[in-house]
Structures are given as C-alpha cells and as structure tokens.
C-alpha cells in the first residue's frame, strides 16, 4: 500500500494487470468527506493533489485538468505494466472523456463492457450502469 500520487511515485512492478475505478470529475471531495479524521488523527492532507475533486467543479478548465491528470496516471501505469498486461477501468463515463484519456496515456481500448449496478441504497433513483474498459498498451 502506497500513500501518495501515482504521478510522483516510483511504482514497483512490473504488473500483470491494472484494475481500478478512478474518481470522476465533480462528484466527491475525498479528503473533505473525512475532514475531521484528518484533523483528529493528524493525517497528511494532500487534497491539492486530488484529481477531479468536486470542489473544482466541472468547468471546461476543470475537465481538461481532470483528463490530463488521469491520463498521466494511466501513462505511468502503462510503463509499469508487463508487455501484454491489461488495464481494466471501471467508470461511468457519461462525458465520454475516456477515449481521449486512453489515447493520451498510450493505451488502446480493446473491450468495453456495460455493467448494471445494483444499488445498495435507495438514495438515487433510476437505473445505473457503468462501463468496464479493457485496454492494453498501444
């Protein structure tokens, strides 16, 4: 387990696979949601490095910064991957940002599965789907 930013870390590896579900722009402030835990336990606060934080909104500039941040992470992952290794990304890409993100990260989309999500809570109405993207190094 590594605490930090994949863009700054020297990743161990090589990996056979990358399996992840990235943050999506404008939805969650990952530090703020547990703010008092940070204050009480004196945890390192790295909120400035969050990608797609809700606090930054979903302006054009925010979306551009998001795509740039995520593609830099996936480029680093690609470098740490074995040659035939796969990158599996679970995301509800309603803004269709991921084709460009993958391309900029040097990845090629191989499969796209749609997955129906059973909601555990009834807080949000309506059907909810997310995509499972499978990519390899281009």
């Amino acid at each position, binding site marked *: *387990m590594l*605490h930090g930013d994949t863009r700054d870390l020297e990743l*161990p590896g090589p990996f056979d696979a990358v399996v992840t579900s990235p943050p999506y722009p404008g939805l969650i402030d*990952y530090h703020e949601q547990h703010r008092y*835990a940070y204050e*009480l336990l004196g945890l390192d*606060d*790295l909120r400035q490095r969050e990608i797609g934080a809700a606090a930054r909104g979903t302006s054009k500039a925010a979306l551009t910064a998001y795509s740039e941040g995520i593609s830099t992470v*996936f480029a680093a992952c690609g470098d740490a991957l074995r040659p035939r290794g796969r990158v599996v990304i679970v995301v509800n890409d309603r803004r269709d940002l991921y084709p460009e993100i993958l391309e900029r990260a040097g990845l090629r989309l191989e499969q796209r599965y749609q997955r129906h999500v059973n909601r555990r809570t009834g807080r949000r109405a309506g059907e909810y789907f997310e995509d499972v993207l499978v990519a390899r190094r281009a």
Partner: protein
Amino acid sequence: MLDPFAGSGTTLVQALESGYDSVGVDIAAFNCLLMRVKTNEHNRFVLERELRDVLRRFESGEGVAGRPTAYVASGSHLRRAATSCASVRSPPTTSTETCCGSYSHARLGPHVGRLISISTFRANRSSSRTGATSTDASASRSSALIISLRRYTLDTLARLKEFARVRTRRSAGRVAR
C-alpha cells in the same frame, strides 16, 4: 496487480482472496488507514482481547469529558487532538472522539490503534446520521457514541475474521510511506 486509485482497498481485498499479489496507491491518508486495517494480517486472538479491553475501559467511564484515560494522559497526540477538536466546526465533535482518536496513538499497538480509529469514525458518522447533533447534551451524545463504538468495533472485528478465513497466503505488497 496494481490499483492506482485504490480507495478503501476493495481491489486489494479481492486480490488477496483470489490469490494475486497487489499494490494499491491512494492520495487520501484516511483511505490508506482503511486499506491497512482491511489487508493487514492480524493475530485475531490478541486483537480481540485488546479491543474488548479498550471498549471495557470506555464503558467504565475512561475517556469521557473530564475523565482522561490512562491511555491518553500524556503525549503530543492528545494535545494535538484536543486542539484540532476545538477548531472543528462540522461535523460535531466531542471529547469522546478526541479520546478515541488519541487512544489509537497513545499506547495501543498499531493494528489495534488503526482499527479503533476506523471504528470511531464509523460510529461517529452513524450517530451523526441518526440525528444526534451538536446541540444534544454532550453526555448523551458521548454515551450514544460509546454504544456505537462497541457495535462498530465488534462488527469490524467480525469482518476481519471472516476475511481471514477466505484470504489466500499472499501479501498485499510492502507497506511503504
């Protein structure tokens, strides 16, 4: 496998269950705390004994306002927690939380300390959701928190035991910070 946005560590837990080595990275230190609690290998007998001891001490009145516990009688963590507590406006905090937070760092081993930290925050979030507010008498809020703390600590312990039965003999990768 690698999860560069590991969150609370679900990918790592699943990898351990399936027999894959895994590394998780996360920017949020609180997520890293959750990840450690979920993936560390514990001696569950020692863990259970120590946790029950902590709960017993709280329930006997240690750690509530005006009654500092032996665990948190000194040390910079207590002071820092107390200071930061005073500056936090929302969600509401009480001396119980301060002590729970400090508890985890004062004398307890790292496994127990982390687990108690997590239980404290689960308990606190739950009591905020069920309508307790900062305007409630702090005594009743404290006792509600202690009841929740027991519930969540034992629940977390039960989950760890269940996971210990299904996890394979793989490491979750080295712990480096």
